[in-house]
């Protein structure tokens, strides 16, 4: 699978906001079935890479190629980015992942309900579906957002700091879930973290982002205190 065309390619790309460069000379290929972590301190530009790949930001210069449609990306934002005053159940949040396939005026068809049930089972939280989304713990919310991304039926999952702000037990559960999705379902996964030690426990393909540059992992953890 990983020998085919990359799902996403960035070549000599300069990325940033409103023409101001945050990262330069970014080279990156994400192929089907790959599990890639992106590590770097806060504010180093990890989210900028995600937002560019997802089309929220234009490339300032260089090349960006996507070999899948935007609706085939499963995006998992940080749950703290969502408005916690929203009165919404976990089931309603997860169901949003299927909205792209539905006609505006129709109710949720049976196959979507089944799919909703399946993805909730997959993340192991079907029993919490009726609870208020923001009453769940940080780890449970993160898994619900992964379920929402799976609801899309994605070729590639992009996760922004899925392991931050959650307890060690949830970190372990989320890591195992990502590994399972990658190994058993062949999903390409690209996630970020500022905790290199944690990242290493999940994958050995690590993109380091720091000082306006990106490099593939070299050296030991001790050389990179973040």
């Amino acid at each position, binding site marked *: 699978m990983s020998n085919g065309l990359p799902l996403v390619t960035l070549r000599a790309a300069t990325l940033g906001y409103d023409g101001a460069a945050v990262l330069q000379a970014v080279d990156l290929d994400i192929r089907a079935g790959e599990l890639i972590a992106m590590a770097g301190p806060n504010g180093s530009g990890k989210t900028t890479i995600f937002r560019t790949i997802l089309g929220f930001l234009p490339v300032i210069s260089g090349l960006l190629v996507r070999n899948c449609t935007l*609706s085939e990306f499963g995006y998992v934002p940080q749950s703290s980015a969502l408005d916690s005053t*929203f009165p919404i159940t976990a089931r309603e949040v997860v169901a949003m992942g299927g909205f792209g396939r539905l006609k505006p005026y129709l109710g949720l068809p049976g196959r979507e309900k089944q799919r909703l049930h399946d993805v909730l089972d997959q993340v192991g939280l079907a029993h919490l579906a009726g609870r208020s989304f923001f009453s769940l713990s940080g780890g449970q919310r993160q898994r619900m957002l992964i379920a929402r991304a799976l609801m899309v039926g994605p070729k590639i999952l992009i996760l922004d700091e899925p392991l931050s702000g959650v307890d060690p037990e949830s970190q372990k559960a989320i890591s195992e879930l990502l590994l399972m999705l990658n190994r058993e379902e062949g999903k390409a996964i690209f996630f970020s973290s500022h905790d290199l030690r944690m990242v290493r426990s999940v994958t050995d393909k690590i993109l380091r982002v720091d000082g306006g540059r990106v490099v593939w992992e070299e050296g030991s953890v001790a050389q990179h205190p973040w």
Partner: protein
Amino acid sequence: MVSFWEILSPSFLLFPALLGSVILAFVCPLVGAHLMLRRRVFLGLTLPQIAACGVAGTFWLQHALGFTHGSGGERLLATAGSLVFTLAGMGLLAYLDRRATGSPEGRLAAAYALASALTILFIVFNPAGELEILNLLKGEVISLSKEELKLLAIVYGVVYVGLVLFRREFLLNSFDRDLSFLLTGGSAQWSFWLYVLCGFSIAIGVIMAGPLLVFGFMVLPPLAARTLARGMSSFLSLSSLIGIFIAVLGFYLSVRLDLPLGPTDVAFGCVVIFAVYAVQSILRRGGGVAGLIVFILTLCAGCGARRSEAPLDLSTLGKGPVWLSSVRNGTGSDLRLPATNPLRSLGEMAGKLPPESRPTVMDLLRGSLQRELQHRQIAVSLPEERDVRLQSFPFDAVSAAANARTANLSGWLWLWEIRRWHTDGRSPLRTVVEMQLVRIDNGGVSWQRQIIKTVPLSGAARLDETSADAIRDILREVFGA
């Protein structure tokens, strides 16, 4: 006195106003809920004010361009002005949100202040139709005509259908714009359509009901619903249901207590919010189901209750006599009836006759009751005919009886006061009259009533005809037939 169930009857005089309130209260909370979810609740305050500014601005423009005021198309003109200003204001605010730096709340506050100031200035510059414009800005939902009700139903129907059909897209766009962009191909278009629906509902709502009621219905029901709802579906449904609850009970309170509808609805809406928070706090502490039931029952208990409204029992009067005091006027206006005689009008214009010589509502009321009592074989006299010092009596029974005794009156003293007798020429005539029958020998009150009447203007060409209709209704209540 009107009971709760009477106002729900289609034959009730103000039923179209109730229907209009319910339509507003059903749809506005849905619009407000979306604004609240987007943290743009102040848009719900600013846009109605911009709409009001549009109404005043259009009339000022009409005046400045020299068109005649009062040609009958005011509502249409006001609607057009409201719509244009609302959509333009919304477009400008959206543009600034994308382009300008600084806080969006600050921009909304500045826009609100500017719109409020311009509204006043437009009215000041256009003295020709000041009163009429003020009425339009106040938004008298109570005087909705059938055509206006139809327009309201159509526009709000379209807004409701739009919000329901595209509920998923609007929800996704409000909750997570990034995902909305990925799944629906563009979050901006859904924001645009949502704001268009908001704009139409606000622009039309302000014309029909005024900025206060529109903002109240947009904000208060969702605020109450949010504390109760766990999910989006229940949040939206509860918002509308609470809106209807506030509209119906607020309307009932307004009619029963003779209060203006808009402020009554808004004040009652705030009470509902506090009540919901209180109930939720009780429920959280456990064992609150009983409390909730008691609360609902208490709230409903007053609705069907009727105050004692016994008609006058003529047998208590015996042989009389009944002294009819002059009617006190507590309204603040002179309640003088228009002249029916063209010669009198000419005389007044020529300064030969003072306007004070025209009869008043008080005269009409006393004369009618006097005739009615005499017709029923009750001896009736006027106190001032016995003693010229008795031109008026205090409304307090004991003091009034004491005054009567000093003039050697005996029997019964009829005291009354008009608390309200008002119409702006479009709305129905609303009246409140207090009456009491006092025993002169001991100052005891043997019968008393407060009679509230709302009389339509249709069919009566002038105030004296409408007042005569109202007096007929009042006497019917007094005698129970």
